[in-house]
Every structure is written in structure tokens, then in C-alpha cells.
């Protein structure tokens, strides 16, 4: 059995989640829009999940729109708000370290004559709220900032940004896909108008997400069809998936005490893992030392190709990733690391290890042992590379 340290890509479906989903795959299989009993029973599953998720983020059930995943939620938020608000302006602000779902959505807006401001980040991947304030104009209709980065785990000062955006009148979208797997959300203290969520990052099924849409937020639907989700997302709902999403959300956020204890446990394991990795020459931590997700350990390793290291560890039975699973097919070094000012050469040697509920101290030790076994041969064959440093 492999050691799985890629929870930021997908955190495996929890048994209790599967159990909650099962009746909706076998018994309650009606279409939730149908009027008959089977339809009503399916609809009940969606309603319950909507209530669960809304309650745990301080929202009303009607403010939750279920989608086909985090990417769809981001697209709906960014394009939906930008297009709905064109009478007030065509300016959107985001950051250089957002997920591609946001960056590529704003790129499409840019081709439709929207003005896009992409804010820089510091060496730890953090946005300065003052930069947000400076970028806001009277034409700005949307500010999109992620709560926690998917590659390096750095968290953003969302409350401070929310304060600034609220005073201005633009809408604030927060991509909380990674954040929600570990940290609680209160949409009011963030002063967020839109929040993206995803089920499979917190032990739910893949292909399900949600967008919180604050009441009164104008949104242009991105899919045309039936009137599901209050006409904000057409298409028959993924009932079992949504039920699983609700169950997974409860597991993570239902017991705040247990969640805090688990975060603390992950922080300590992550610290041990980081210390072990740093014992090798040419390894540096990426992201913020403290303001980061509890389960994220990210490093760059000088003189090593990240993809080769991932393959080598895979053959040793340790499953990790380079930057993010979504971009690992491409040759370009991670846009997140580049935005943090990391040398492109060094950025090729990135490694992300993201821990989860089953991760044990033994897993951490075995991972470090595997790392130690493969690193020398990766270094000898790939030769000495020019030295590069991570900015402080």
C-alpha cells in the first residue's frame, strides 16, 4: 500500500461519505426536479447537503449553488459576476498565484475587452491588502483572491482584503477550495460575496463543487438550460455527489474541536517532514513559514527535475506531486513559484507533499527514507546545476 501524500490533489473518499452516498446510487435514484416521490426523495438529499454546507460557512441555503467542481465554481463566479456587472464597469482584480481556473477565466474576460489587474505577491506568496486598495477603481466590479494556495499552501489576509473591497462596493470572490479542507469559513467575517468550494479536496467525491453567492449578487449563468439551482446552474444535479459533499463537509467541520486537534497533528507531522527534507543540501521551503495550510509541505530542490523525483518516489511507494496535479502535464515551471520570485531553474525542482487524516509518523519517516534513497541518483545523473536561491 502506497503512502499517499497528495491530499491537495484529491483527498480520498472517506468511508462514511461513501456510506452516505450509497442510497442515492441504489435506492433514491429519481431526478430531483421530478414531482413524484422518487424525485422528491432525491431532492431531499440535495436540500440536506445544502443546509449542512450553508450552516457551516455562515450562509443561507439558498446562497449555495452546486456545480461540477471547484473549477466550475471559479468560472461561474468570475465570468458570472464580471458579465452581470458591465453596466458599472469592466475591471477585475486578481492575483498572480490564483488557480488556473481563475487566471484562465480572467484571461477570457481580457479578450472581451475587460481590464484585468493581476496583483503581485511577496516571496512567500502573500498579497498585500494595500495593493488591492491601490488597484481598485470606480470601474472595478470584482476582486478574486484565493484563501489558500494549492501549490505552496500560503494563506491570504482575506479579512483585511474583504474590509477594503466592502468599502469600495466591488464584489469579493474567494477561492476557498484548498482552505475549506482544513480551516473554518465564515462568509461574513471574510465579507465575501462569492466563495468557491470543492468536495474532493476534503474527502468527498470528485466532480462536485459549490459556489456561495451572497444574496443580491448579480450573476450571469454560464450554462444555459433548465432552472436548477435557482437558474444559476442548469443541468440535472449530481445527487449522490452532492450528498457526499455534504457528508464530507460535516466530517471536517462538524466538530470544531476535533478539526483543531487534527490541524495541530498535521502541523507537527509536517514540521517533522520539513525538517527531514531540509537536512539535505539544496532543499528550501517554499511558501510562508507560518501562514500556510496545516497539511502542506512544499519545497524546491536544487539540481533535480521535479517530475523525475515524483516518478522515483512513486516507484518507492510514495505518492506526491510537483506543483499542482492540474498543471503537472506542462513544461513551464509553476506560475506560483515564478510569481514568488523563485528562479525558473530552481522552480523545475518543486515538490509538494500534502498530508491527510491517515498520515502517520511512520509514513513521514518512510517518506524521508525513500527521499534519501532516490535523491543521490537523481543528483548524480542530472549533474550539478547552477546554484540558485529562494528569496527570503
Amino acid at each position, binding site marked *: 500500500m502506497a503512502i499517499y501524500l497528495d491530499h491537495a490533489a484529491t483527498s480520498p473518499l472517506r468511508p462514511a461519505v461513501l456510506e452516505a452516498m450509497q442510497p442515492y446510487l441504489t435506492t433514491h435514484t429519481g431526478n430531483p426536479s421530478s414531482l413524484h416521490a422518487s424525485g422528491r426523495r432525491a431532492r431531499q438529499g440535495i436540500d440536506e447537503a445544502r443546509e449542512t454546507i450553508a450552516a457551516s460557512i455562515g450562509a443561507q441555503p439558498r446562497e449555495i449553488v452546486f456545480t461540477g467542481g471547484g473549477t466550475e465554481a471559479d468560472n461561474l463566479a468570475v465570468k458570472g459576476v464580471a458579465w452581470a456587472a458591465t453596466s458599472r464597469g469592466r475591471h477585475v482584480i486578481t492575483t498572480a498565484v490564483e488557480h488556473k481556473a481563475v487566471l484562465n477565466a480572467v484571461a477570457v474576460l481580457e479578450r472581451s475587452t475587460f481590464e484585468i489587474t493581476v496583483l503581485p505577491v511577496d516571496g512567500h506568496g502573500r498579497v498585500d491588502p494595500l495593493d488591492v486598495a491601490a488597484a481598485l477603481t470606480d470601474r472595478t466590479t470584482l476582486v478574486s483572491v484565493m484563501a489558500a494556495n494549492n501549490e505552496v499552501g500560503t494563506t491570504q489576509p482575506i479579512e483585511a482584503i474583504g474590509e477594503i473591497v466592502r468599502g469600495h462596493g466591488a464584489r469579493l470572490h474567494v477561492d476557498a477550495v484548498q482552505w475549506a479542507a482544513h480551516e473554518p469559513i465564515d462568509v461574513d467575517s471574510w465579507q465575501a460575496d462569492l466563495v468557491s468550494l470543492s468536495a474532493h479536496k476534503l474527502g468527498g467525491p470528485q466532480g462536485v463543487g459549490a459556489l456561495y453567492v451572497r444574496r443580491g449578487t448579480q450573476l450571469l449563468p454560464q450554462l444555459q438550460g433548465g432552472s436548477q439551482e435557482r437558474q444559476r446552474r442548469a443541468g440535472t444535479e449530481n445527487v449522490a455527489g452532492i450528498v457526499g459533499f455534504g457528508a464530507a463537509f460535516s466530517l471536517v467541520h462538524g466538530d470544531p474541536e476535533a478539526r483543531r486537534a487534527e490541524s495541530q497533528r498535521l502541523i507537527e507531522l509536517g514540521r517533522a517532514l520539513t525538517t527531514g527534507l531540509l537536512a539535505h543540501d539544496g532543499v528550501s521551503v517554499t511558501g510562508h513559514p507560518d501562514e500556510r495550510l496545516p497539511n502542506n509541505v512544499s519545497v524546491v530542490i536544487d539540481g533535480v*527535475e521535479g*517530475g*523525475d*523525483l515524483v*516518478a*522515483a518516489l*512513486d*516507484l518507492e511507494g510514495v505518492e506526491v506531486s510537483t506543483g499542482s496535479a492540474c498543471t503537472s*502535464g506542462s*513544461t513551464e515551471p509553476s506560475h506560483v513559484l515564478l510569481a514568488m520570485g523563485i528562479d525558473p531553474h530552481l522552480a523545475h525542482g518543486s515538490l509538494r507533499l500534502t498530508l491527510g487524516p491517515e498520515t502517520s509518523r511512520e509514513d513521514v519517516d518512510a517518506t524521508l527514507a525513500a527521499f534519501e534513497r*532516490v535523491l543521490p*541518483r*537523481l543528483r*548524480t*545523473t*542530472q549533474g550539478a546545476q547552477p546554484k540558485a536561491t529562494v528569496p527570503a
Partner: protein
Amino acid sequence: MSRIVAAMSGGVDSSVAAALLARERGNDEVIGVWMRTHADMPEGYELSRSCCSPDAADDARRVAQLLDIPFYTLNVEREFGERVIDAFVDSYLDGATPNPCQACNQYIKFDELLKRGLAAYGADAVATGHYARLEHRDGRWRLMRAADADKDQTYFLWVLSQDQLARTRFPLGELTKPQVRAMAAELTLPTAQKPESQEICFVPLGDYRELLEERRGYAGEPGPIVDADGTTVGTHTGYAHYTVGQRHGLGVALGEAVYVREVQPATNTVVIGRRDEVAQRSFSVDGARFTAGDPPGERFTGSVRIRHRAADVAAEVTMVGHDRFVIETAEPVWAPAPGQAAVLYDGEECLGGGRIARSEG
């Protein structure tokens, strides 16, 4: 545990090679690797029959899944771009005919893949779907022609050193193509019926002229086409668009078939000749390499092949220094093209070869 990398292109040959290896060594010792050699072509411009399209990656992955072997994509875009594509373009600009498959073997499959394979997968050898055989005899590795003479690919492999040969496996060497296809069908590999790829994998639709412009800014400047006497008989679109031996696209009507005899970059001139004028009995070769490390002697006899699938011709080889030689053939060979390989054989064994040099004068 000794692991081996199976280079998988998505074609039927490398699929069967990987299958044979997995059967022989067990599926946890064979690592399937598909190499990304260049960026995807824009939509609608895809080379469905080429080894490097996204479709090919899909096919390779499906085969690896069926064989139950680990499968990775190895990015070699930078190395392939420099060593194969740039070299290809520069060869044309040099008035020569490029040899991209050989360059890919020399620098990518049996160098970069070997190095990276060792680093990433702890593998000590690379297996490919080439039709060629290896024998270890009298203390050294010998590169032998394939059992299927029609498919023999030693013409692209002559450049491998002892070091490389020692870490190479050719599981298809003893098989014929029909046998390989039958095996693919028997294993129900999705690639069993795939047509042969013939085109150069990074040249869409076989037209390399765009690549010259894209990589080196060469748009082509019209210049003269001259005959053996130096008389201008036509106009060409740019010397780099022509290769020695070429017959089509000259736009010259002289009442008989004419061929490109020489390409002169310095004067942007293309020289043509009749069929018998482009044949030669003697030519020189540089960049010589021998699979054994050294040539068999300062002067030796054997046979030479100057293009893939051409017939061998008996030849006498005279070394000039350690990396050049002169070839004299028993009968005229047709249009030895500068840049192409002259590959030497002693019966079934491939001894090595070199790059046909520009003829003097």
C-alpha cells in the same frame, strides 16, 4: 531489482516490445515511458499518425494500463528542440539533408532517456521497438541487422557506442513485422491496427519550410537553378528548400528527368543533373563513429548503405584520421546526399558509419 525503461511511442512496435519485456521480466521491472518531444500542435493541425501527438500519448498509456506496468511521461522538449529540431533546420540551412531519426536515437532515446531513466526510475537499460539485434561476442556488443531485412533499422542506430549498446534491448530484433502485428492482436493491444508512421514527427504534413522560418527566420530567397555547365535553367524558392536527389518541385523542363545534384548555400544556387550525373563511386564521410569504438582497420572492405531501405553496395573504406573516411564503391551509388548517413556493414553486423560530406568542387 533491475528495472528497464520501455520507450513507448504509442505505435504498434514499441507496444509489442513493452509487452514482450513485461512478459519476460515481470511487470514491476518494466517502466513504460512516453517522451513529450515537442509542444502539441494546434487543434486541427494534429498529426494523428505521428509518434508524438497527444493521441499517441493516449495510446501508449492505454497499452501500459493493459500490461499493468508503471507509466510516465518524460518531458524532453528542450533537448529534442536543440538536438533534433534545431539540428534538422540547420542541416537544411547548411545545404545538407537532415537525419532526425538518427539524432533522436543518438541524443534522446539512447542518451537523455537512459540518463533520466536511471535518475527517475533507477533503470539501467532502455528497450525500444526498433528492428535490430544485439549480440555480445568476443568481448564486445555487436549491432546486427534485424531478422526482418525489410524492417531493419540499423541505418538509424549505427551511431550508438559500446556503452549505449550495453544498456540497450531490442525485443523485436528476431521478429518480422507481421509477427509483431499478430502478437499485438493476440494481446488485444489498442495499437494493433495502427498504420505505420512515415512522416517526421515534428513536421506537420511533411512540409518543413515553415519550420525553417519559425526556428531560424529563413523565409527563402529565390535563386538560380543551374545545370552542370553553369547555365541557368530555372529559378528556385530558396536553396534550403531543396535536397540532393530531389526530383519533384524543380519546375524545370529539359525534356528528361533531372535531379538536384548539389545545393550551394553560399551562392544560393541549386545545381541539377541527369540521373547518371548524380550517381557517384567515391565520396567522403566525416563524423565517423564505430560501434566497436575503433574502425576495423585503416583500410577495410565491407558494404555501405547511404539511405534507409536502399540496397547495400560493396565498398572499400579508407580512414582519414580517426573521424573521417573515404568510400569507394564497387558500383555507382545514386545521389549520396551530404548530411545523410553512410552506414557500414560487415555482413550482418553494423560497424558504424558517418555523415556524408559535401563533395569538393
